[in-house]
């Protein structure tokens, strides 16, 4: 059947297995070279291969300890299901990406980050144990202190060390499902960089940045800060998302997001636009209200370009290039990361990360090749969960631990068993 990542580029034909338990997973793994797939929210070709194992059928909870907040569940359980179940009991995810429609397995394999990376690190930093199915059919329980080499390769390892069958994660206690959100206006790049410093102790922070603004306004942004409210209800998500009925011509999303941004940005008032207490969904998962919004980019699909730079220097240069090209989406997300962890292929490193959508077109790919060179020169790199096109050379130069990663894979029967179109493109055979 035809498969693609969230960006709907590239699309490939794949044979997909649908196991519902570990035994069936093991059968699929030993039968052919495969890659695991969660909810397909990685944008590019990370979860694409000729043979794919869909993990969503492994969707059981195993245990939840109300004393310690430790949750054990199958890898195919989604973050949405976890929130729906545990928010009413006063528990929240330690880290959530910008969509809750990802699986626990996918969150670990991409070692995902959220708006609290600068204080709480990545998803993998809150994983206590993983049951991993190896290429030889064996299942091992790994953790920070149990086969740590394999654990640090698996968190962020893009499914290339084995199939995550289940995991134990440490949840965070909350008193309310509401978020106290403060929006800060920043007129240009210097202002937003300063705002990140000023608000460095906020639990959640990320900025919408206007990528079309040039000259004096280059980098103008809205910084969104969030804290869990101390009071209020513990309400699960209730509203089902509305779906985009068919493939839309691209540009629609630009108009919608542009309007919302401008309304806030040009609202009169001092630098703090507003503080409000809102449900957690619009703060963390603003796009989840619209199911299948990726169809707004039309049939040709799109790519998301997300890079991190160790310093703000160079950010200006890249923003100027993007603004001049006129190719990118109106809005990008800018965030300041905290320190990197020990996971071999984990994306976040200390510095600034920017994520921006481009429709998949030849002119865009040329531009992105240019940006790659700039990112590499500036000591940065690209997020594998968003990537559909970077070169092997770019990857190997910017992820210096790739060899150590391959050594772990070789020791644990992964080479030749687990491969995605991405891993082949990046020379991780």
């Amino acid at each position, binding site marked *: *059947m035809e498969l693609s990542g969230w960006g709907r580029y590239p699309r490939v034909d794949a*044979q*997909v*297995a*649908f*196991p*519902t*338990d570990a035994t*069936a997973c093991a059968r699929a793994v030993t039968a052919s070279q495969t890659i695991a797939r969660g909810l397909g929210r990685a944008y590019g070709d990370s979860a694409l291969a000729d043979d794919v194992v869909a993990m969503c*059928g492994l969707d*059981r*909870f*195993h*245990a*939840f300890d109300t004393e310690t907040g430790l949750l054990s*569940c199958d890898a195919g359980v989604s973050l949405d299901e976890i929130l729906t*179940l545990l928010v009413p009991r006063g528990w929240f995810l330690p880290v959530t990406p910008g969509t809750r429609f990802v699986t626990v397995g996918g969150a670990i394999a991409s070692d995902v980050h959220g708006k609290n990376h600068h204080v709480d690190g990545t998803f993998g930093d809150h994983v206590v144990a993983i049951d991993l199915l190896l290429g030889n059919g064996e299942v091992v329980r790994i953790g920070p202190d149990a086969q740590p080499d394999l654990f640090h390769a698996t968190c962020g390892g893009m499914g290339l060390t084995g199939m995550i069958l289940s995991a134990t994660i440490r949840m965070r206690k909350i008193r309310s499902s509401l978020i106290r959100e403060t929006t800060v206006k920043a007129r240009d790049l210097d202002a937003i960089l300063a705002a990140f410093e000023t608000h460095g102790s906020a639990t959640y922070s990320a900025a919408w940045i206007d990528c079309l603004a040039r000259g004096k306004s280059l980098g103008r942004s809205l910084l969104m800060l969030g804290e869990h409210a101390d009071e209020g209800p513990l309400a699960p998500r209730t509203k089902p998302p509305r779906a985009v009925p068919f493939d839309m011509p691209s540009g629609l999303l630009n108009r919608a997001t542009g309007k919302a941004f401008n309304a806030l940005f040009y609202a009169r008032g001092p630098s703090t636009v507003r503080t409000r207490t809102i449900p957690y969904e619009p703060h963390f998962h603003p796009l989840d209200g619209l199911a299948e919004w990726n169809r707004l980019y039309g049939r040709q699909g799109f790519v998301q370009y997300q890079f991190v730079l160790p310093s703000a220097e160079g950010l200006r240069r890249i923003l100027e290039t993007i603004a001049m090209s006129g190719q990118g989406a109106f809005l990008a997300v800018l965030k300041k990361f905290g320190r990197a962890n020990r996971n071999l292929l984990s994306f976040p490193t200390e510095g600034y990360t920017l994520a921006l959508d481009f429709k998949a077109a030849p002119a865009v790919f040329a531009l992105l090749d240019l940006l790659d060179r700039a990112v590499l020169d500036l000591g940065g790199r690209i997020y594998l969960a968003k990537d559909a096109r970077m070169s092997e050379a770019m990857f190997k130069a910017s992820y210096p631990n790739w060899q150590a990663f391959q050594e772990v894979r070789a020791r644990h029967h992964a080479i030749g068993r687990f491969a995605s179109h991405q891993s082949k493109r990046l020379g991780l055979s």
Partner: protein
Amino acid sequence: MTRIAIIGATSGIAEHCARLWAGRGHDLTLVGRDTARLDAVADDLKVRSPVSAIDTLVASDFLDPQAVDMIVGALCAERPVDIALIAHGTLPDQQACQNDGALAADTMLVNGVSPALFAEAFARHMVPVDRGTIAIIGSVAGDRGRKANYVYGAAKGLVDRYAQGMQHRLANTNVRVVLAKPGPTATAMTAALQTKGQRMASPADVAKRIVAAIDRGSPVVYAPALWAVIMAVVRLLPRPIFHKLNI
């Protein structure tokens, strides 16, 4: 406090029914043949609903009438369960059944005779107290014999007639008999068909319809609903046309 027993509780469709019932805080007893698989289902339900009592009962023989009576007797020892969901089934390759009489016999026994025995055993406990619901999962395959799956379909047809007869007999009582007829659904049973790219309903959606039908006590429920229309057409197609179809 509602008590529910599920026969074949490791079935994907039944498990999703159980999740809905656990979400309401009901108590569940899960019956199946494999301890580890049953425990995995039970552990999940316990996390979903800490207030529910979730028990398991391992049984090895679903075909022997005496064994069936013992299982149901144990489930209804204190008082009859409020709802019994009979869900087990197996879908082997049709051609394999044609070539292997033992496999064909087993398929017809597991999918046809066994559910009927369970339904009747529950009725023996429910009728005297004049309350309870017996729900059986049949299949759209039972509506008309087709070359693609008639061994399985014949057994599901048996279940259909059996449920019909019980409904007729119990029409003036407070015991309800509900027959669910799912269309193709994404569970372990259809994993190979999913790989071939066949479109399937999600077990969660199918379960939602089944549980709602049990709430209402509807005699027959197709899931998803569209299958009621499709099967009405399939049943009515004149033989010459039907025989030209490759279904």
